[in-house]
């Protein structure tokens, strides 16, 4: 469905992407994670043919990204900050402009607005909407053609957890309908929950990729045992046999309140990866 082969991108003499390769099969939710400035938006632009790569090749639906035809473009829904909404127009009219462009039936507009939970705000001018509602409208615009592929640049950035949750549900529904989703996020927890596979991007390199569970398992040595003492102190031990005597000594003292095991999560893996790079 979506593939990247040795994509490089430089702006002037700044290397923003260095040798990015991956392949996303049909029906998968793929998450690209990385800190600000990692090159996530740049990669989406290259994959969707908005920006030419310096070298390498991006393809969607077995077509090179820069050669997509108009009917192929209709199969691709894109949501990114750079694509603005008409502030003075209502939600309905914002979608109507694009429905006219795509030659889509008017009923489809109502249906799409309902799908993202904006039925009650059809007539509201967009500039009066909350951030979360604007995001939903952007999503609705990306959903309008019922695309087989979705590119979403930080679909939940700046939203409260409840609204983010609703957007996750919408994406899972799209997946159920057979769509392939490429999304970017800063939020590791979101990626763990939502994505079938993820890639960790930092400074233009993919550091790790695989299912969230796989990636975490690979860093299982990060597993910790957390001991909470009755004097409110927390002590953490690596989850290795060598820690056993110390932990049992604490237990013998009778000062242990609780014991937890903390599994590596994407957050800690990412810290480990970028941290070790800094040290190295």
């Amino acid at each position, binding site marked *: 469905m979506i593939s990247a082969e040795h994509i490089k991108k430089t702006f002037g003499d700044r290397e923003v992407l260095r040798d990015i390769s991956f392949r996303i099969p049909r029906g998968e939710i793929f998450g690209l994670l990385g800190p600000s400035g990692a090159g996530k938006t740049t990669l989406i632009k290259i994959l*969707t043919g908005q920006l030419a790569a310096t070298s390498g090749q991006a393809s969607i639906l077995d077509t090179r990204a820069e050669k997509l035809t108009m009917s192929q473009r209709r199969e691709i829904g894109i949501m990114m900050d750079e694509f603005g*909404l008409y502030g*003075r*127009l209502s939600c309905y009219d914002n979608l109507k*402009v*694009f429905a*006219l*462009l795509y030659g889509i039936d008017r009923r489809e507009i109502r249906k799409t607005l309902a799908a993202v939970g904006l039925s009650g705000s059809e007539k509201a001018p967009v500039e009066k909407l909350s951030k979360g509602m604007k995001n939903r409208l952007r999503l609705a*615009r990306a959903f309008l053609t019922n695309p087989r592929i979705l590119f979403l640049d930080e679909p939940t950035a700046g939203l409260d957890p409840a609204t983010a949750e609703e957007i996750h549900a919408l994406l899972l529904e799209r997946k159920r309908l057979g769509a392939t989703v490429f999304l970017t996020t800063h939020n590791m927890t979101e990626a763990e929950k939502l994505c079938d596979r993820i890639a960790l991007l930092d400074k233009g390199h993919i550091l790790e990729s695989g299912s969230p569970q796989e990636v975490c398992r690979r860093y299982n040595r990060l597993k910790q045992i957390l001991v909470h003492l009755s004097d409110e102190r927390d002590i953490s031990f690596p989850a290795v046999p060598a820690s056993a005597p110390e932990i049992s000594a604490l237990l013998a003292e009778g000062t242990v309140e609780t014991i937890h095991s903390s599994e590596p999560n994407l957050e800690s893996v990412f810290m480990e990866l970028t941290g070790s790079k800094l040290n190295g």
Partner: protein
Amino acid sequence: MRNIAAVFYKQIKDTLKNKTVLIQFLMFPVMTVVMNNAMKIENMPENFFTELFSVMYLGMAPLVSSASIVSEEKEKGTLRALFMAGVKPSEYLLGAGGYIWAGCMAGSLIMVFFGNYTAGRILFFLLIMALGIFFSLIFGTCIGIASRSQMAAVSLSVPLMMVLSFLPMLAMFNHTVEIVANFIYTQQLQVLLSGGTCGMIKTESWLILAGNGFLALFLFAFIYKKNGLE
């Protein structure tokens, strides 16, 4: 065609809520109607207000609204979304420009309707307006394309608008100003609008109009080539 229609639709829906553009479209037509009815001065030339305001209208409304609309779409990223949906830059310019042109022609129609003209004269008046609105539209679009933001576009279009709309009026009072103003299309069109016929117009006036037209198109080609529409 579908794409141009979609851009046109967007403009129709936007104008009623877009004060900058709405005021530009309506100010002079409304002033013409009001002044024609309110002011009755002895010995006032016939159609005085229509003639006075129509030149200001064609120098101001298309210029400011096109500069503001194009620069806003660029700044807000709505233009990018249109392009991603398959709209070509030429289609966008035809849709938005066509809409502004049509809107200003509707305003001109009001202005001429409230004057006292023969049918032939009305047609002539509208033809001159059509030409002048087209010139200003191109200059405004150039500003819109060249500006990074809507604010920048406004600060560029205001001085140009002053020159285009007020110089012809000031030329009535001062000979030096008139000499300068003669090189500008609004001044030449004013002569035609205020009672002149084509037979009365000197060849050099036509040359100046043609020169202004070439300048507009050349400037547009240059700025479009340099900046593109994104």
